[in-house]
């Protein structure tokens, strides 16, 4: 019995931290009550499906609702896009799937992304533009240094360099667009005029 509780408690750790903190003990106690009342098989039948559905759902909700997680969302989209592009070059076959996932995430979360970008913040604008500017030369530099795509033979090193280069390229474009889209913080005179 304790082992079953331990396994469930371990699975509860897959939920977002805040939800786990607020309701982790309740979930485990609830599961224990289910095992006591209806037996382990019935308890797992119910909680297995529940875990499968709610773990990704609550993570997605956290990403959608938490403004601080917009950076995480951006990173996930970029990683998926880069993975899709890299997969195309190494013929891993996952390219369409990863690119569709990146596109779907960007489209479905566009309001959260746009909302985060619309917040006026001069420092953030400068930081985004600075990071984008630093990343711009990475891809051409890697390309010229390692003579990528000059023949069909691919080594692990070329694959890794390509992934890093494409990651930098996508990141540069993303940061430059985000930087340009981030308004400057209005100065006090503008705020007084608006008030």
């Amino acid at each position, binding site marked *: 019995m304790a082992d079953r509780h331990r396994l469930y408690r371990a699975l509860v750790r897959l*939920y977002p931290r805040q*939800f786990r903190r*607020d*309701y982790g003990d*309740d*979930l485990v*106690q*609830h*599961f224990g*009550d*289910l095992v006591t009342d209806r037996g382990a098989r019935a308890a797992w039948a*119910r*909680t297995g*499906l*529940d*875990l499968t*559905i*709610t*773990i990704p759902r*609550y993570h997605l909700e956290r990403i959608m609702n938490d403004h601080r997680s917009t950076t995480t969302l951006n990173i996930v989209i970029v990683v998926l896009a880069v993975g899709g592009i890299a997969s195309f070059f190494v013929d891993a076959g996952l390219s369409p799937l990863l690119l569709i996932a990146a596109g779907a995430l960007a489209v479905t979360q566009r309001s959260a992304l746009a909302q985060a970008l619309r917040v006026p913040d001069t420092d953030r604008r400068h930081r985004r533009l600075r990071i984008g500017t630093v990343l711009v030369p990475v891809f051409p530099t890697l390309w010229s240094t390692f003579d990528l795509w000059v023949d069909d033979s691919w080594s692990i090193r070329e694959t890794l360099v390509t992934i890093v280069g494409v990651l930098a390229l996508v990141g540069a474009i993303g940061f430059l667009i985000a930087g340009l889209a981030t308004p400057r913080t209005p100065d006090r005179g503008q705020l007084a005029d608006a008030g």
Partner: protein
Amino acid sequence: MAQPDPSSFLPLPQAQFHVLVALTEGERHGYAIMQAVEASSDGVVRMGPATLYGTLKRLVDQHLAEELARRPSADDDQRRRYYRLTGLGERVCAAEADRLAGLVLLARTNLRPGLA
């Protein structure tokens, strides 16, 4: 402070409505809410633990339900957290019940005019 309009919460997700209805009978802890939902739906609605506590979290966040600071009685399990409806929760639950009742009436009228 002005209370939100109950109709602004409608339509309620099915899980939220079931939990609110379970709480109309009084304060309950999570496991008792799950049992009440099953009983009221003849076993059709079976909530898993995370679905239930996720729903409770949303209801508490929206001030439709609240956690009791103290257990209803000394006999109750002190480890459990108990929940009850707020005034707003009662009004939202009633508004959703009225909305669904109107919908049921319309369906019955259209499908079986003689029984409406």
